[in-house]
């Protein structure tokens, strides 16, 4: 099955990515090895954004066509989206403890990501509360569309809000300038996470389809 192949490909890519993160990528000069968390944190947030773009796509697709496949896509992308967002927050927080001394600062990216997390957890909660498939799909689609449209607005509002209260931190999550091995490791991990996301979305979609067949 193509799905199995995708799964194994994702596993392979993840092994390569983690291996690169620990073995190939250099020890960063300023932060030390703690910086390796970034090879998890940055790809995770990028993958989360991709997931929510898929939610947006599925939401619009359903409202326009009413084909259940679009709604299946939206749900299938939202679940891993929330997971990757959670991983982003957790890894960012864990990175922050030795670096900044606290588990949480109201740093612009962490805060924006936390808001994103809350929005899509709400999305999943909403879905859980409606049994009728069409109504559930429509309600979720509207919430999903607003949630995605809100992403840039949240980003800027939090960024400006932070600028008011704190000078720019010296230690950004990404080292700069970005050396080639670091960039390469980031890219490999990002690709691996993307493959994993696609696999999870496909698998979740398959489950939804099976469930509908059983119910129908």
């Amino acid at each position, binding site marked *: 099955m193509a799905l199995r192949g995708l799964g194994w490909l994702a596993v392979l890519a993840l092994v390569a990515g983690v291996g690169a993160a620990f073995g190939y990528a250099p020890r960063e000069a300023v*932060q030390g090895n703690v910086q390796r968390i970034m090879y998890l944190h940055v790809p995770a947030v990028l993958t989360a954004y991709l997931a929510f773009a898929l939610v947006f796509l599925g939401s619009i697709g359903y409202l326009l066509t009413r084909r259940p496949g679009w709604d299946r896509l939206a749900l299938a992308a939202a679940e891993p989206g929330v997971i990757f967002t959670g991983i982003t927050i957790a890894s960012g927080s864990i990175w922050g403890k030795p670096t900044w001394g606290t588990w949480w600062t109201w740093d612009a990216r962490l805060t924006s990501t936390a808001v994103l997390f809350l929005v899509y957890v709400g999305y999943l909660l909403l879905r859980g509360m409606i049994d009728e498939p069409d109504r559930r799909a429509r309600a979720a689609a509207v919430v999903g569309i607003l949630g995605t449209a809100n992403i840039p607005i949240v980003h800027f509002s939090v960024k400006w809000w932070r600028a008011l209260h704190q000078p720019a931190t010296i230690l950004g999550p990404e080292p700069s300038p970005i050396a080639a091995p670091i960039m390469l490791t980031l890219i490999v991990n990002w690709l691996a996470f993307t493959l994993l996301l696609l696999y999870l979305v496909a698998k979740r979609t398959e489950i939804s389809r*099976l469930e509908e067949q059983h119910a129908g």
Partner: protein
Amino acid sequence: MPDNWSYVFAAYGLAGVVLLAYWRRLAGRAKSLGARGVRRGV
């Protein structure tokens, strides 16, 4: 700066556990649905 490997492992470990748990949940559901759906020729 000290290396703080424990933090690195904690972050990766957490991510790995969560993703693995989610995947296992999916795989479990797919399996039970597949077993039920044998007669429908899925």
